[in-house]
């Protein structure tokens, strides 16, 4: 299941709902990403731009790849766009499988692909104005392990 939304979400409620929606799973892994403050400590907010239409298509494609590679009882991806404050949740993925290795690998794979292959762009807003977050070489490198 894929969800793209501006609204905040309740990570605990989503984890409980996801786990209740799968059957036969012995392992459930979740990842949640939160807005961290910038190094200078004066982040007012993060603004995430996305590409409506392509976003859903890209996330569904990434989830399908995960399902093809590992034996999964379920996959969940939720990503927000718009404005969010330091400490707020940005996104979440969850995976369920019979054994833990599949759930862990699939969750890491989803995160690596989502970082560099889903059309989201982060901008950090401080008193000095807006600064687009640069893509990290290490995120691109992380894709090569799959």
């Amino acid at each position: 299941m894929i969800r793209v939304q501006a609204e905040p979400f309740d990570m605990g409620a989503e984890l409980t709902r996801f786990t209740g929606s799968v059957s036969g799973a012995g392992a459930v892994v979740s990842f949640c990403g939160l807005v961290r403050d910038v190094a200078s400590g004066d982040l007012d907010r993060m603004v995430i731009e996305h590409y409506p239409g392509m976003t859903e298509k890209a996330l569904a494609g990434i989830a399908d790849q995960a399902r093809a590679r590992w034996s999964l009882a379920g996959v969940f991806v939720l990503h927000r766009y718009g404005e969010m404050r330091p400490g707020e949740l940005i996104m979440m993925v969850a995976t369920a499988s019979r054994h833990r290795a599949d759930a862990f690998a699939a969750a890491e794979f989803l995160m690596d692909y989502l970082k560099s292959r889903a059309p989201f762009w982060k901008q950090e807003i401080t008193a000095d104005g807006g600064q687009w977050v640069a893509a990290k070489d290490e995120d691109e490198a992380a894709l090569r392990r799959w």
Partner: protein
Amino acid sequence: MDLRYFAWLRERIGTGHEKVETEATTVAELIEELKRRDEAYAFAFSDLTAIRAAVDQDLVELDAPITGAREVAFFPPMTGG
């Protein structure tokens, strides 16, 4: 053909959406055509290593064909997650 721009590419070009008529057959040819328009486009597309493109909402390499495409989008490397 609909063109879409995102993030700093959108800011540099000054719009997120425009319609163009083009005879370019690849993404790269379309970029060259856009760069010849004016300084803003030339600046936005000055470093092609920082440019990513999607044709009809699928991520593609810059040598990908665009013949028959409805929508081509340009943007910087993605920073999701």
